[in-house]
C-alpha cells in the first residue's frame, strides 16, 4: 500500500529544509531519519518522557506528539541548534558537562531544550522554577540534582557574561 506524500517546508536550526512525508510520520522521526539530526532522542513515543523535546517557533514541545506534516511553515530548533554559531558548546551545554548533569545521556537533549527555553524567558530562575521547567522530562540516572545545578550554573554564567 502506498501512502500519500505531503510536501513540507520547515526551518530547522536556521536552515530551510523541505521534504515529502506520509501524514503519519512523527516530527521526531522526520528529524532523525530524514534530516539525520539524531541529537533529538525517541523515548516513549507517547508524550511522557520528554526525550524528544524540541522548540517549535521558540517554545518547547514534544516532537513525538506532532506529525512532521504539521510542522510545515514553522520554525524548529533541535539540540543541534543550541550551539554557538562557531559550533562550540553553549553556556548551558558547558554547564551540563561541568556539573556532570548526565549519565547515560538519553534525556540530555530534551533536558537542554527544556532548560534553554526556561532561560530564554527567565534568565534568573529559582530552583523551583527550574524543577518545574524540567518537570516534563524524565531522567533515570541523575536524580535531577546535577541537572538543576547545571541550569543554575548556566544562569550565573550568562548573567556574568552579560555584565
Amino acid at each position, binding site marked *: 500500500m502506498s501512502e*500519500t506524500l505531503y510536501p513540507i517546508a520547515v526551518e530547522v536550526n536556521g536552515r530551510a529544509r523541505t521534504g515529502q512525508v506520509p501524514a503519519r510520520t512523527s516530527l521526531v522521526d522526520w528529524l532523525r531519519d530524514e534530516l539525520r539530526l539524531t541529537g533529538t532522542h525517541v523515548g516513549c513515543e507517547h508524550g511522557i518522557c520528554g526525550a524528544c523535546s524540541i522548540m517549535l517557533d521558540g517554545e518547547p514541545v514534544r516532537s513525538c506528539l506532532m506529525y512532521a506534516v504539521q510542522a510545515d511553515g514553522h520554525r524548529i530548533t533541535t539540540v543541534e541548534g543550541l550551539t554557538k554559531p562557531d559550533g562550540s558548546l553553549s553556556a548551558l551545554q558547558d554547564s551540563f558537562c561541568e556539573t556532570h548533569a548526565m549519565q547515560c545521556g538519553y534525556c540530555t537533549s530534551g533536558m537542554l531544550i527544556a532548560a534553554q527555553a526556561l532561560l530564554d524567558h527567565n534568565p534568573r530562575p529559582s530552583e523551583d522554577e527550574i524543577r518545574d521547567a524540567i518537570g516534563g522530562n524524565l531522567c533515570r540516572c541523575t536524580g535531577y540534582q546535577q541537572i538543576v545545578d547545571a541550569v543554575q550554573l548556566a544562569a550565573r554564567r550568562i548573567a556574568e557574561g552579560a555584565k
Partner: protein
Amino acid sequence: MKSPPFEYARARSVDEACALLHQHGDTAKLIAGGQSLVPMLAFRLLRPSWLIDINEIPDLKFITVDIDAVRIGAGTRQCVIDRDEKLGTHLPLLRQALHWVGHVQTRNRGTVGGSLVHADPSAELPLAAAVLNAKLLLRSQGGRRTITADQFFSGPMMTAVRPDECLEEVQWPLWSGARVGSAFTEVSRRHGDFAIVAAAAQVAVDGSGTCTRAAFGIGGAGPTPLAFPKLAGELVGSRLERDVVLSVTEHAAKQLEPGSDTHANAAYRRHLAKILAGRVLTSAYAQARGTA
C-alpha cells in the same frame, strides 16, 4: 508505537474544517494540540482515515472578557491561558485548574477545547467546565448549537459532540459581585499527571461573609467530572461552618461512582473526594471573604 496511516488536511477556517468533517463523516478526526490524540493513534486505539488539522485556524484562538462570561476560542493553547493576566482576575478557577495540567511542553501545544472534547474523567479543565457549567458552542456545516457542560460530558472520553461538529468556543460564566473566591486541588502520583481525584469550587459571599452562591465538583471519581449544584445550593445562607461543609461533601461523596485501578481503589477515591471537596470549599470561601 507508530500511528496507523491516514490522510491529512490542514483547515484554514472553521467553515473549511466543518466542510471536511461533513465530507468524511465519522472516518475523520479533528486534531488540535494532539497531546492526547497522537498517543491514542500511536497505541492504535483509533484509526481515523483522515486527520483534519485545526491548529492553523486563527479564528479559534481568542480570549474575550464579556460582561457575563469569558469567551475562549477552542484552539487557544493552554500556555496562553497560563500567561493571560485578565484571566487571573476574571476567571481564577481556570488558571488554578491549569496549574495542575501536564508540563510546559504539553501546555505549549495542548488546547482548551482539545482537553474538553477528549473528556478524560480525571482531567482538570473538564472539571472546571463542569463546576462553572460552561457553555460550549458547537459548529457544523448545518449550523451552530450551544450546550452546557452538564449535557456535554456523557461518559469516559465521551461527549455530546457529533462526528460532524467542531467545538468552536467555550463560554465560562462570570459571577457578578466582587466577593468571589475559587480553589482547585487534586491528588496525583506526580505533579502533572492526571488526577487520582480532583476537586474544584467557587464561592461568593455578601458583605457580612454569608454565602450567596456556591458551586463545586469532583473529577476522577466517576465516568465524567461531576458538579453538585443542588448540594452547593445548601451552602447558600451559611458561613460554610465545618459541619455544614462536612454534611454537603459527605453527601457528594456518596453520589459518586468511583472505579478501582492500580492507582487507587474506589473507597480511597470516595474518601479523597470528600476531603478534597471540603478543602476547596473552605479555601474558596476564605478567598471570597478576603476579597474586597
